[in-house]
């Protein structure tokens, strides 16, 4: 039994923004990075399934430059067995090409389950998993909150719809599932595991090329004027203005 988990080191924008000279992305100096929240839940779910079944392998895969390996190391520290990086430098705007870059490496693993996050917090495409499933010829379910699976045969999963309504779906395996937050409580890796993960070997494979499905032509700050009226002053002034609004608006 093998589970592949696709994980991404996402970019986090702080409280200041500058754009690159060609205005097609944010200047990397203004970005920090972290393991995508959804992918921590996906990795945890894979580890729990492996533990429940008592055997099997969890392989984590990312597509990106060398810095993206941080996401893999975090998952290795959590307990993943192996890690693969597809060497690519795709920007955030084209999830279909991103899925193409992942397809070869994931296919080579012949997994019983492929898990992705529902979305990456920096791009919010919610598309890579579903596109990847198509490229791999796998059935898929998006936005999964629960997995019931014996290790072979169909899995019964809960798909979370709008308004919190849950749908029970029976899916043939191998399958690709996109994992929603709240499905579990991702474990923390201890310091020793984190240190050990630093030393682990990561397999690097070249990305497969492909045409682009979308291109960012201009990135910009949200238009001003759409924004809120700023309440000036310290906490006491802010509180006073809020109290005023409470009285005014609740008439």
């Amino acid at each position, binding site marked *: 039994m093998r589970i592949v988990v696709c994980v991404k080191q996402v970019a*986090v*924008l*702080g*409280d200041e*923004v500058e754009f690159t000279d060609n205005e097609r992305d*944010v200047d990397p100096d203004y*970005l920090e990075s972290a393991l995508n929240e959804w992918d921590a839940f996906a990795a945890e779910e894979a580890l729990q399934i492996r533990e429940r079944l008592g055997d099997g392998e969890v392989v984590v895969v990312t597509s990106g430059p060398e810095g993206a390996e941080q996401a893999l190391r975090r998952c290795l520290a959590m307990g993943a067995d192996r890690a693969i990086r597809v060497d690519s430098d795709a920007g*955030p*705007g084209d*999830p*279909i090409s991103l899925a193409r870059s992942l397809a070869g490496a994931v296919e080579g693993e012949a997994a019983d389950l492929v898990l992705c996050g529902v979305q990456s917090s920096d791009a*919010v*495409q*919610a*598309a*890579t998993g*579903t596109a*990847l499933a*198509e490229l791999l010829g796998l*059935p*898929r*379910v*998006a936005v999964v909150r629960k997995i019931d699976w014996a290790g072979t045969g169909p899995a019964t999963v809960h798909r*979370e*719809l*709008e*308004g*919190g309504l*849950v*749908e*029970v*779906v029976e899916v*043939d395996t191998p399958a690709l599932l*996109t994992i929603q937050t709240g499905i579990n409580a991702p474990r923390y890796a201890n310091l020793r595991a984190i240190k050990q993960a630093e030393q682990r070997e990561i397999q690097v494979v070249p990305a497969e090329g492909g*045409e*682009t*499905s*979308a*291109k*960012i*032509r*201009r*990135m910009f*700050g*949200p238009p001003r004027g759409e*924004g*809120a*009226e*700023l*309440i000036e002053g*310290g*906490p006491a002034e*802010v*509180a006073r*203005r*809020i109290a005023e*609004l*409470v009285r005014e*608006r*609740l008439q």
Partner: protein
Amino acid sequence: MSGTLVVAEHLRGALRDVTRELVTAARELPGPVTVAVIARDPAALAPALDLAGVDEVVRVAVEPEEFEADVYQRALEALIEVRGPDAILLGFTVNGMGYGPAVAAKLGLGFASDVFALATENGAVVATRAFYGGKVHAELEFPGKERVLLLLRPTAWAPAEREGSPTFSDLEVEAGPSRARHRDFVEVTQGDVDITAADFLLAVGRGIGERENLEELERLAERMGATLAVSRPLVDAGWMPNARQVGQSGKTVKPKLYLALGISGAVQHLAGMKGAGTIVAVNTDPEAAIFGTAHFGAVADLFEVAEELEKLF
């Protein structure tokens, strides 16, 4: 054809609001607007698609009663082959996410998701969406693509009015077996508060940091006469029952006043509260996306503000 193809979304026998919003968006693109309804009994849903600006409604009968990704994918692929639309519009919804990107990957279409504005330039579509936690916007183009598939953000367009003059037709498709089959629905609301009935919601998000801090904010809500609501991470962590969750996968609320403390303003949160009468946001990050939707904003530490509010109520 050319023109735009919209796929209707429905659940448990009722058309979903996003469908009418997609029609409004489709009217901003050149050419006729066709709406396809894929269902076991599409004729039952078709009359609700008699909307202003719709030129044609195509009924596609399939076996499953509810959405199934494989079936929708094959039905949409057949529609694209027969009708040859320039643009295909689906909702950026859990269903849309489940098959739209697959169709785009298979057919090599231009693709973008969570699109909230559309334009055409020299006949080519330009789509606007957000990146990096909603803090920046970007225009996307689709070089070399004659056909694009876009997932549009719910509530970004006004719903199309009733009563148009569409023609109605049927399309037969070979939808084949489904590898992910609908079995059942289950309601999973825990908690007994109805936050949709409140006039004043004090909503707190991950900015509160620790579970221990909830108590203080619950007390503040009570003093201010507000009902406490939360963003999703607090429910995921098990700190609050999901009856208190505001957003796409929680409740849609329209209180007179919505006071958001430590909430960043993710698109799925905004979907549930942007209809509130007055929105006030307190966040330490001046670039937080919530300031784009709030009517009043304060760049401040929520605990310091909470402490001052305690003195006033």
